[in-house]
C-alpha cells in the first residue's frame, strides 16, 4: 500500500459538513475515493452517511444464524441430556417431554440471537480497537469530524475543500 496521509476537519454545523462532503464527492482529485472519507460524530447522522458510498450492514445475517442454530442445538442438548444414561423418569411425564423443553429452547433462541448480534456487531464495529491518532474529543461532544485519507500530495487540495465550509479546525497527520 502506498503511503497515505490523513486530515481531519471539524464542523459545528451538520449542514456545513454536508456541504463539505458533497464537494468532496465531486472534487475529482486523482486517486481519491469516497471510501477514504470517514465521518465522526456525537450522534448518528444518516443524512451525512448517505453522502458517502453505501456501506452495507451484515449484522442481521448473523442474528439469523444465531436464531437458527441456537435453539436447534439447544433442543438436541436438552433432549440428549434427558435421555442420558442416568435418565430420571418423572411421574406423569415422558422422559423427553416437549412442552417444557420448548420453554428452554425459546430462551436459547433469544440468548443465541442476542449473543450472535452482539458478537457480530463488535466485529463489524471493529471494537475493541484503537482510536486513530487524529481523534478529537470534540466529536464526542458537539462537533462533526470529517476524516479523509489521501495521498500526501493531494492533502492540500482536500484541506482546501474542507476549509471552504467553515470548519472550526483542520488538522492533519501527514507523516504516515
Amino acid at each position, binding site marked *: 500500500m502506498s503511503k497515505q496521509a490523513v486530515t481531519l476537519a471539524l464542523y459545528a454545523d451538520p449542514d456545513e459538513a454536508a456541504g463539505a462532503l458533497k464537494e468532496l464527492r465531486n472534487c475529482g482529485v486523482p486517486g481519491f475515493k469516497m471510501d477514504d472519507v470517514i465521518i465522526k460524530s456525537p450522534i448518528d447522522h444518516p443524512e451525512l452517511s448517505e453522502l458517502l458510498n453505501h456501506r452495507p450492514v451484515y449484522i442481521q445475517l448473523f442474528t439469523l444464524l444465531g436464531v437458527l442454530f441456537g435453539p436447534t442445538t439447544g433442543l*438436541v442438548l436438552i*433432549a*440428549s*441430556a*434427558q*435421555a*442420558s*444414561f442416568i*435418565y*430420571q*423418569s*418423572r*411421574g*406423569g*411425564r*415422558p*422422559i*423427553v417431554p416437549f412442552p*417444557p423443553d420448548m420453554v428452554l429452547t425459546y430462551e436459547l433462541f433469544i440468548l443465541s440471537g442476542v449473543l450472535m448480534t452482539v458478537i457480530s456487531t463488535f466485529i463489524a464495529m471493529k471494537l475493541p480497537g484503537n482510536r486513530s491518532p487524529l481523534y478529537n474529543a470534540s466529536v464526542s461532544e458537539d462537533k462533526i469530524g470529517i476524516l479523509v485519507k489521501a495521498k500526501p500530495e493531494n492533502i492540500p487540495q482536500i484541506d482546501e475543500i474542507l476549509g471552504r465550509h467553515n470548519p472550526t479546525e483542520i488538522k492533519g497527520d501527514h507523516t504516515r
Partner: protein
Amino acid sequence: MSLSNLIQNWQMFRTRRPYEDQYKDAPYKWAMVIDLDTCIGCNACTVACYAENNLAVVGKERFGKGQAMHWIRIERYWGEGEEMKTDFPERGAQYLPMLCQQCEAAPCEPVCPVGATHHSADGLNTQVYNRCVGSRYCSANCPYKVRYFNWWNYPERAWPNPLELQLNPDVTVRSKGVMEKCTFCMQRLRAGMDKAKTDGRILADGEVLTACAQACPTSAITFGNLADKKSKVARMWKKQQVDLAKNVQDKTEEGIRGYRVLEELNTYPSIVYLERLRNFAA
C-alpha cells in the same frame, strides 16, 4: 452416544406414565394397602419410622412452628365433611395414617430443579438427599404435604451422645437444607432385593416389610410387591378394584372399600386405603 441413545430408545422416552401394565415385566412395584377399619391410631408405626429412618426429634418449640419431621403421621378427624354435626363424636374418631403416597404421577417429581426426586424402576418416588439443593418446590407441590424439610441442622442437635449409637447406618442422617420423605424403607428393600438377586429369584411376599407395616399391631398396613400378582397386596388391590393407572376407578359392586386419597388430582398414588366401617345400627 447420547444422541444415538435418544434416537434408538425414542419410543421409551416418549412414553407417558403411568400407563396400563407399566409393571408387567418389571420384577417389583411396591405398594401398600392401609385398612382404616383396623387402624386403631396407636402410633406404633410412627415410632417405628423414627427408629428405622433416623428421624430427628425436633422438640416442642420447633414442632409448634410446624417443623416436625414425622414421615408418617396419624391424622385424627372428627365428624363428616365440613363440620361435626353432633356434639359428640358418636362414631368414634377417624384415624388416617398419612405417609408419602409414592404417586405414579407424583406432582413433586417434575418440579424439582435438580432432579433430586424422581421415579425409580420399582415404582418409588425417590429422594436423593445429597442432590437436593433445598428449593422446597416439591413440598409446595405435594398435595398431601408429606415431604419434610430439614429446617435446622438436626444431626448437631437431635442425637446427643450416646443416642447417635441407635442411628441406622443404612440410612443417611440428613443435614440442614435438604428435603426428606418416606422411602418405603428403601434400605430394607434394597438389602432384600440384592440378596434375592444373588439367589437368582425375586423377593417373596412378606419377606421384606416396611418398618410401619412390620410394627403395626393390627396389621392394618399391608405392604408388598404389586408386580407379583400373587402377593397379598396385589390380590387386595384387585379385590378392591383399584387400578394403578386409572384416576377414576370403575367399581362393579357396592361395598368395595378401596380408594386412593385425592385421586382426582391425577397423582396415581401407590397406597390404597380401605374405607373405615361403622355399624350404624349400633
